[in-house]
Every structure is written in C-alpha cells, then in structure tokens.
C-alpha cells in the first residue's frame, strides 16, 4: 500500500470513527471536565507535600547540627538530614516548574524533546533516591532520639545504629543484585519510577534529534 492509497483508506474510516467515538465526547462533557482539574491539582498537592517535608528536614537538620557543634556524629547526622531535605525541595521545585512550563500546545517536537529530557533526568536521579532511601533513616533516627527524647543513640546504643546501617546496606545490596542479575528488574524499576529506562529515554532523545534533522 502506497501513501496515497493509505490516504484513501484513512478517509474511508472517517464516518466510522465519528460514529464510534461520538459517545466518548458526550460522556466527557457530562462527567470529566471537573476531574481533569482535580487530577492536576492532586499532582501539585503531592509535589507541595514533598516540598513541605523537605523544608521541615532542612530546618530540623540545620537547627540540630547548630545546637550540637561539639559532637561530630550529631553534626554529621544534622547535615545529612539537611542535605536530604534540600534534595527533596530542589527535585519537587524542578518538577513543579516543569509541570507549569510544559505547554502541550507548543510544537510537538519541542514538547517531546522536553519530556524525553525530563524522563532521562528522572532515570539518572533514581540511584540517588535508592541510596538515600536506604540510609536516610539513620541520621533521622539519631536526630529524633536526641531532639525529642534527649538520648544520644550513637553513644548509648551504638548497636542500634549499626543495625540500621546493616539494614540499609542489605537493602541496597538487594537492589543492586536485582538490578544486576534479575532479568528485567532494572527496567521495571526505572519504568515504575520514571516511566522509562535509561536506554529507552536516550533512544527517544536520539529519535527526536534524528527527526529534526533534514
């Protein structure tokens, strides 16, 4: 079939398509205009919650290490919590900016390039979230015990801290083994987090660049 024959076949579908999908438009008019607004709002609320949590971690971490300048492990715990908070705030702010900036009414190639870059960025950031997710509990627990209960966990029960380090290491090892040895696990993980794998997101960027070239 040549392209001009495709055109005839496509045009012959027109009436069938109009008949088949007209009901979808009716349903949309009746029910969905409000829900579109609600879905976008839900995404924004999620990002705002991440930012609020991040700001709380920054404030708690900074005030904690400032209050215990004489103890290295407490300063390190406070700084790590603060750094984690900054990461949360920065990533949420960046995603929020993108959400506001991406205008689907812009030219198709430009928008697809922005989306592909965004996906690639999220895939590259994924190992950072895995590592921080495995270990952030340690400084958080030390800060909470000291700030709320007045107990220095690292001094009074170092075995608990070691246990948390061990759990984090095991969890990270589990991720590494799954990503390295279980077929499809790394791709599935990336898919669930960023909607694509690193290889596929790079492939998409290459495809777009090729499409732009004459």
């Amino acid at each position, binding site marked *: 079939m040549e*392209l001009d024959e495709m055109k005839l076949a*496509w045009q012959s*579908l027109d009436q069938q*398509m*109009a008949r088949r999908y007209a009901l979808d438009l009716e349903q949309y008019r009746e029910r969905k205009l409000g829900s579109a607004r609600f879905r976008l709002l839900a995404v924004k609320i999620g990002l705002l919650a991440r930012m609020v949590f991040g700001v709380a971690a920054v404030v708690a971490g900074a005030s904690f290490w400032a209050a215990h300048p004489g103890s290295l492990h407490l300063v390190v715990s406070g700084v790590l919590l603060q750094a984690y908070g900054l990461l949360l705030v920065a990533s949420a702010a960046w995603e929020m900016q993108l959400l506001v900036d991406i205008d689907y009414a*812009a030219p198709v190639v430009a928008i697809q390039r922005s989306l592909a870059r965004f996906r690639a960025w999220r895939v590259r950031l994924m190992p950072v979230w895995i590592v921080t997710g495995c270990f952030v509990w340690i400084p958080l627990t030390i800060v909470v015990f000291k700030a709320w209960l007045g107990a220095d966990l690292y001094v009074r029960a170092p075995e608990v801290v070691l246990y948390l380090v061990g759990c984090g290491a095991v969890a990270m090892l589990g991720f590494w083994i799954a990503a390295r040895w279980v077929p499809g696990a790394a791709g599935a993980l990336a898919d669930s987090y960023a909607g694509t794998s690193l290889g596929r997101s790079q492939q998409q960027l290459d495809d777009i660049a090729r499409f732009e070239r004459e």
Partner: protein
Amino acid sequence: MNATTGDAMARELPDRQQRFEALLHEHRRIVFHVARMYAGHSDERHDLVQEICSQLWRAFPRYDAARRFSTWMYRIALNTGISHLRQAGARAQRFEHLSDELLEATRDDAAGAEDAERLAELDARIAQLGPLERALILLYLEDRPYADIAEVLGISETNVATKISRIKQRFRQQMTRADNP
C-alpha cells in the same frame, strides 16, 4: 457550516466551558483521528479520546483566540497521543488486536473483504512508524498543507517534504520486496 464559521460562532459564546465544548464539537474529528493513530485497540482508543479531551480542557485557559484552533488542538492531541504510545510501548500493544473498524469491515461479501484487507494494510503501515512519524503521516493523511504540518510539529517545511518523500520511498521499496521475494 464550515470550521471557520463554526469557530467564530463558538468564540462568541459567553461561558468558557460552553466555548470549549462548541469548539471541541466543531473539531471533534481531530480527537478521533489522533486516537485512531496512537491507540492499538478499542478500549485504549476510548481512553485516549478522554485523555485528549482532558488535556485540551486543561490547556484551554491559555489558548490564544487570535491563533487557529485546529493547530492548537492538533498539537495538544498529538502530544497526548505520543505520550500515550510511549507509556504503552512497554506493554507492546501496537495493533496486536483486530481494530473495530477492521472487524466491522469483515463482512461476507467481496466489498467487505476488500475493505478489511485495506484496513489491515493501513494498520500494518501505521505500526511501522515511530511516534513522530505517525504525527507527520496523520497530518499528511488529513490533507493538511506542508506549512500547517511544519507549524504543528515545529520543523521546517523542507524537512516535512523530505520526510514524507522518504516514507513514500520506504513503502515503495517494501512493496517491491514483497512482490519480488
């Protein structure tokens, strides 16, 4: 009533939702065609129609009435369709099922058989195209001028012409190979 007259009347409506609904109705075929191009089977197409409408409504407050509604609508619908195809890519859904139109065409007469064959070929050709090529071909199949296609996609007119010519050539070569295995 042609699209331009319909657009002008729709833009006169006082309420934003009414204006949107009138314009959507006027240009509804764009939504159907994009859904047909980017979703593999019936359920997905119905979902994609809804998703495109949601994206259109979400973007409508930023629509500049001085610009053509159809261009704006094509961009949003195509971007939504491409995103849908990329998400569905992992599920490998492309035209594995018989399309509704194909089933409808599969009747017990010669004309029905011919329609079915033609639609099967159409789907097979579409399945070979990447997401951006589908956008290009959709606009070509709709008889849009090259200048419009370039504006919607954000590439030059020369690039549009070159790409269409290459796709034509590719299809011809495939036909030649199929005829002379």
